[in-house]
């Protein structure tokens, strides 16, 4: 069936079964590869995107359930988000495979909580696995970005 989606501000038509996870529509239909597959069962966070500003696991979001919801993916942050600058400053990524999801979770955190505490970071980020163990740099980069984001926040 044909489904209309709004992704990063652009309307897209896709042909997919309604039960297809949004993740695979983004990847296999639209070839938007920034959003990653890691587990398929909402355990790793690699597939995190925003749906109307809320972080969701796209592997567990049937494309038919999205409706008129606005989807934002890592590509939608445009490379200029303060978190992305902070990620580079702290050399956060190792293999990098988890990092799109980490940044999308962090962006949603900062949008809701501009100055997150360690407990806020734990709560928002513990659903995002990093097998390379970049955790302490992720935490540092979020904290570093939080000052800057207070001015420019628009996740």
């Amino acid at each position, binding site marked *: 069936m044909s489904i209309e989606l709004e992704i990063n501000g652009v309307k897209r038509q896709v042909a997919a079964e309604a039960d297809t996870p949004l993740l695979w529509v983004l990847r296999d239909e639209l070839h938007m590869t920034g959003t*990653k597959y890691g587990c398929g069962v909402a355990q790793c966070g690699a597939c995190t995107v925003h749906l109307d500003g809320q972080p969701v696991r796209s592997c567990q979001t049937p494309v038919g359930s999205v409706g008129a919801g606005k989807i934002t993916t890592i590509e939608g942050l445009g490379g200029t988000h303060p978190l992305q600058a902070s990620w580079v400053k702290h*050399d956060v990524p*190792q293999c*990098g495979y988890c990092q799109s999801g980490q940044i999308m979770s962090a962006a949603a955190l900062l949008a809701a909580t501009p100055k997150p505490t360690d407990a806020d970071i734990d*709560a928002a980020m513990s659903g995002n696995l990093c097998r390379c*163990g970049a955790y302490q740099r992720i935490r540092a980069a979020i904290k570093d970005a939080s000052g800057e984001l207070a001015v420019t926040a628009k996740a």
Partner: protein
Amino acid sequence: MYIAPEKTRTPSGGQGASRRELIVGAALVGGSLLVGCSPADIMGAGAPKTDFGAFGPFIKIDADGAVTVMNKHQEMGQGNHAGLSAIVAEEMDADWSTVKVQHAAANAKVYANSLMGVQGTGGSTAIANSWMQLRTAGATARAMFVQAAADAWKVPAAEVTVKDGVVSHASGKSAQFGDLLADAAKVTPPKSVKLKDPKDFTLIGTERVRRKDSLAKATGQARYTQDVYLPDMLTAVVAHAPRFGGKVKSFDDTAARKVPGVVDVFAIATGVAVVANGVYAARKGREALKVEWDDAKAESRSSAEMLADYHRIARGELTPSDDKWAPFTTKGDATGQFDGTDVLHATYDFPYLAHATMEPMNCVAQVDGSKCKLTYGAQGHSLDQMAAAMVVVNLPGAIEIETLFAGGSFGRRSSWDSDYVVEAVQIAKHVGRFRPVKLVWTREDDMTAGHYRPMAHHAVAVKVGKDGYPAAWRHRVVVQSFAKASPMMASMMVKNNVDSTTVEGTAGSPYLAATPVVDAQVFTPHSPVTTLWWRSVGATHTAPVMEHTIDQLAARAKIDPVEYRRELYRRAGEAGARHLAVLNLAVEKAGWGTLEDGWTRGVAVHESFGSVVANVCEAKVIDGEPRVRKVTVAVDCGIAIAPNQIAAQMEGGTCYGLSAALFGQVTLDKGRPQQTNFDTYRVLRQNEAPQVETWIVPSAHPPSGVGEPGTPVIMASLPNALFAATGKPVSSFPLVKA
């Protein structure tokens, strides 16, 4: 201990095979005997002749003078894109801010790992084996620019200087690399070049050496295998046997073929392939497939039964016919030494561990007749080329590989049987016409596909002398050998029936060097469960065993564990010198002695892959689970090229080891893995991660690796911290029982 240049190392681990043995191994696998060729000749046979340009296979220079370094290794997170390109930039005096780096194609003739003899990444060797090669390449290119400038300006070459990509002369003349490019390319490369004195380095060892790929990885632009989309590409998944060693008996694909998007269903050596348009259709097709499996030769035991067998083997009550005890360190006469009351007995159990890379295994293959191209996060280029060549019947070097980023490896991407690569090639061969096929493993496929860190059991008995220090040491290791599972690996890594990766870290331990009588032996039972190197390989079990045994000995002697180690390192002499230095540094920086509120410290020191790491952790049991809040690491890895990335590897290696020590295990029930995804295979999360502080020992020695050596020490310092709190030794992993 530095790696002897005439020896080869296998991807991630084993040491000690000669080139000659590697050739024999390669010939065995290739099924033909090639005498008088180097391994690179064999693995590179059939390689397309490529013109690498004036500056050789490692350096490309754009018209604007920007330098691109070709990385013959896999950048799988460990930061070698940064370290390797910094080596070139240093000797070349290039402008570091504009230096770029790319993965090189597979070509063993020019890109062989000089410590392996073939192209591959592992054993924390990327920097070590490239050190002189890339310095020479960089210095040679620099000399060519200097000569070009000297000729153009009619001044002596000795008076020409280079800094940040600018060539200049005291007369005021100056030019960019780009300006001189055409002339420099015509200069005959000098036969020998003078390398910098390390004290004159301006880039290496500084904070300026940072990752080159952080922006690409922070914006979703970095390209992994999973991200490959080619015109007309198909996606494949495979129904694998539920038990190791199982085979397809029969299958019914009627329903699978009716799933929209499914293109074809067919049997391959390892199962039944479902080929479709996209991952979701392929998975649905596989769900609709009915397969009957033949488990006649499959592993049917539970892991608990297998472990019970290991215990019986260690006690001498069971001797499977497929192996025999192999001594690996023997000193003095151990007869009758271990019967008295002055003997400490300790046993340890280690489970199977999955690598659980963030990106599950995958590979894009295109095959037309004997022509084959692979696009993926290649780590064991030459091994994979050889394995693919056998499927399509071609020369290894003719298998084209485009190397992408790997979403983690920890050893998994380079497997001795090239398992996922062979699967992709078989499927692409069936599809034919060079049509691209992306083999996708789901998390469940990846986690149940074996190639685990082997399960292991150690039984240790130490006779304690009057001074409280070891007088005699008996050590029995029971562990599967992955080297013995493959004739080629066996030829490279097994000597006198000892697979070095099963005992490294116990073999070579300074504690055994300090003990007058040693009887250490290993037994490697066979199972169809496949095993593989896993970040730091043998050290994943030998480090916790040696270090936790030392703490138990120290406690028994009522000597502080740091002091106890210092004394043993002194007794070990040269073999303990670097250990002593890192221990002292770690303890100085971490502090030592009692902490408040029930927190305790544990220490561990271990050498692996030529680097020595000491780790002091602060731990406490909270809500029934051990928590680590702070870890102080001291590392001696020779000359530190990229300090920031060394720290990153100590941080990441610590988390990886901590995750395994706390939670990691794959258990088998009647031969079937019980953990299939992150809901059952628990791994470390953000709220459980410690703060890691890294200190680097200044060194003038050539660089050694940092990708692995940070991992095993936390697996030992944490049990030591818990032991300090409770007085109860740890005897099995993981520490948090499911």
